[in-house]
């Protein structure tokens, strides 16, 4: 019985993979459980097993092939089993339609904005990098620059990061500076704060920010408040970082967006970058900042590539928004992965004749509300977009600020597009419904423009 072996989804967020190595040749017989290939996912190199006895009749992709979409046939297989059966395991997530994958913005607009924001030389070169690589480079550069900077967290050293973010750091900096911790978030967050009080500059990685809830007392009570409580004596130069928000199908306890939670706290700075360049520049600024900074990353975004300027010391200031797209009809304000949906919505709106101005807040505390107000005074309309819950959201805050400072310029109420007010469901269809969508953003923008 002939069948196709398809590239399997081997992580919740895997969209494409690389066949690192074929461990079988054409014509080779295999038995169930034999490892036939090594597949590199967005997280790790995984072994891929045959689940049936039979013969590999043809290899359809070459060893080393990258960016192969999940569910693409990679080999042909002749099964010994008479009953028709697919050798490939059923994909963990339904294959995505091409238009849903990585709606990245055009490189040209990125160049233009990057140059404006960071006063880069006009002839600066850019190179394509994933958000994951950008974060790793930011840490490595700062660790080279300052021996008091070190990284601690679960699986950051020998495993090289649960999401492969700290690849190569242990090899370069050694176990004294790249510290694997036990699974003990409350404890190591507090310990990290102590090292910062004593003058070190720890980067504390949470495997996901969902686990930071175990440690939130130290982030809020110990890190954020002590400078004030000590009358300015006890600074806490620490960075808490890790993936935040929903990944894909990981359920309610692993899918929460903490933007509004941490942005609420005086004494903390909070950044939530979208692009790789901003992730790099903001993390470098965060590590140098003498205050505690929370950086909210996103697992889905780790694998996305953006143009990152090739300069020696690329810093993005904390507290400054970026205008990604100019438009005169409505201001769309977002941050983090919300920007992905927002930019896609702006493209659709443009086809409808509505030109949206898209602002990436990048920092949530301090928040560059001045840029939002300035834009709203031109567009007279504002829609906010975030993945978090609607009550007490970042969008609520922006709506309030816009009402207080630009009431007379508003031609419509400020609308908040948010995640739905429910714990994140597991079922694929329900999860999609729970997350903020491009359609909802388009509808909100049409509503406030009365079109």
């Amino acid at each position, binding site marked *: 019985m002939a069948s196709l072996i398809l590239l399997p989804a081997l992580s919740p967020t895997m969209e494409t993979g690389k066949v690192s190595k074929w461990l079988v040749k054409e014509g080779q017989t295999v038995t169930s459980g034999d490892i036939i290939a090594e597949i590199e996912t967005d997280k790790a190199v995984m072994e891929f097993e045959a689940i049936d006895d039979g013969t590999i009749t043809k290899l359809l992709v070459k060893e080393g092939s990258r960016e192969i979409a999940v569910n693409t046939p990679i080999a042909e297989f002749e099964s010994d089993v008479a009953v028709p059966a697919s050798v490939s395991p059923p994909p963990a997530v339904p294959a995505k339609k091409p238009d849903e994958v990585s709606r990245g913005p055009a490189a040209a607009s990125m160049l233009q904005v990057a140059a404006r924001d960071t006063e880069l030389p006009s002839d600066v070169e850019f190179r394509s990098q994933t958000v994951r690589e950008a974060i790793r480079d930011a840490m490595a550069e700062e660790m080279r620059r300052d021996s008091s900077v070190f990284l601690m967290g679960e699986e950051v050293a020998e495993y090289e990061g649960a999401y492969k973010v700290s690849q190569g750091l242990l090899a370069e900096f050694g176990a004294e500076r790249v510290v694997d911790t036990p699974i003990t978030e409350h404890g190591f967050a507090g*310990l990290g704060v102590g*090292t910062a009080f*004593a003058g*070190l500059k720890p980067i504390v990685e949470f495997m996901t920010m969902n686990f930071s809830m175990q440690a939130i007392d130290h982030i809020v*009570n110990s890190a954020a408040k002590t400078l*004030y409580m000590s009358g300015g*004596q*006890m600074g806490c130069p620490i960075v808490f970082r890790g993936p935040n928000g929903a990944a894909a199908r990981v359920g309610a306890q692993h899918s929460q967006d903490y933007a509004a939670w941490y942005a609420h706290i005086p004494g903390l700075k909070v950044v939530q970058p979208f692009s790789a360049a901003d992730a790099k520049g903001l993390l470098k600024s965060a590590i140098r900042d003498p205050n505690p900074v929370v950086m909210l990353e996103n697992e889905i975004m780790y694998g996305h590539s953006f143009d990152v300027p090739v300069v020696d010391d690329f810093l993005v200031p904390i507290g400054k928004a970026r205008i990604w797209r100019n438009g005169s009809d409505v201001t769309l304000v977002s941050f983090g992965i919300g920007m992905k949906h927002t930019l896609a919505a702006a493209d659709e709106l443009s086809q409808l004749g509505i030109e949206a101005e898209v602002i990436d807040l990048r920092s949530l505390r301090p928040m560059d509300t001045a840029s939002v107000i300035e834009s709203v005074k031109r567009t007279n309309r504002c829609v906010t977009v975030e993945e978090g819950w609607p009550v007490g959201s970042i969008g609520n805050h922006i709506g309030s600020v816009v009402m207080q400072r630009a009431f007379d310029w508003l031609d419509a109420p400020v609308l908040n597009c948010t995640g739905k007010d429910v714990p994140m469901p597991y079922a694929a269809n329900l999860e999609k419904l729970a997350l903020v969508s491009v359609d909802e953003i388009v509808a909100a923008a049409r509503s406030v423009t009365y079109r």
Partner: protein
Amino acid sequence: MSGKMTETNVIPDASKAELLGYYRDMLLVRRFEEKSGQLYGMGLIGGFCHLYIGQEAVVVGVEAVAQEGDKRITAYRDHGHMLVCGMDPGGVMAELTGREGGFSKGKGGSMHMFSKDRHFYGGHGIVGAQVPIGAGLSFADRYLGNSCVTFTYFGDGAANQGQIYETFNMASLWKLPVVFVIENNQYAMGTSLARASSTAQLFTRGRAFDIPGEMVDGMDVLAVKARASAAAKHCRDGHGPYILEMMTYRYRGHSMSDPAKYRSREEVQRVRTERDPINMLRDAILQSGAAVEAELKAIDSEIKIVVSEAEKFARESPEPDADALWTDIYLPS
């Protein structure tokens, strides 16, 4: 008190200057705290105020072995730790009264004072939270390659917090130079140890993590000093953390608003009469002939003046300027 105490020599094995120094420091804490209680009653001190009266020998004995650069951190019964590590009594008292001249410019209060100069890292209000922070301070010393030790204090109540054991695990795993000083004053607010803890001997709680520990008579300043010295040496020699369970007692309620009905007057009175740390040292000094009554009285008078000057400073220091509301939230980047 239950369990086996460490055997110590009842004959003073310290020099005269040392003995008088311990006496002076314990008395300073006692009189300072009595004054704090008075000022609280007069409305000059507000909020939460946890007095250290009865526990003086613990901090004085431990501080006796501290070297320059050693760090200390505790929870919110912290006035004694600050006074004995050398923070100015006026600055501490002015913080209690919420004045500009306080160690935190009036923005911290009784529970939140710090001194970088004296390596005092607070002053923390969340029970147990100071313990991983203390381990972090010692992590920094190990990272920097010096031989400093961090004295991390917590009470019998905090001993049941989960983060203590997360910290024990990391401190032992990484051989951090931290002495965990458990101030077992028998009551976690209103709950006696027997009602809150499945085991009576808290120093044994480190065994699962391979951290040595012992019980010490926390009312005997010389016993405290002797064992703290051994514990600090253990850390400085690179052997990792050490636990000292100081058996002590607080005479006053948990905080100023606590009527302490969970224990009998007789129980308190018995400790005051038989085990008071200041009287015990006083008797030992006089019996051994290390000093005479007049010398101790001179110290009493000196302390009265120190405390009254602290009170004066704390009363006269102005309230913080309204602009201070908005300062010290962030350091300039």
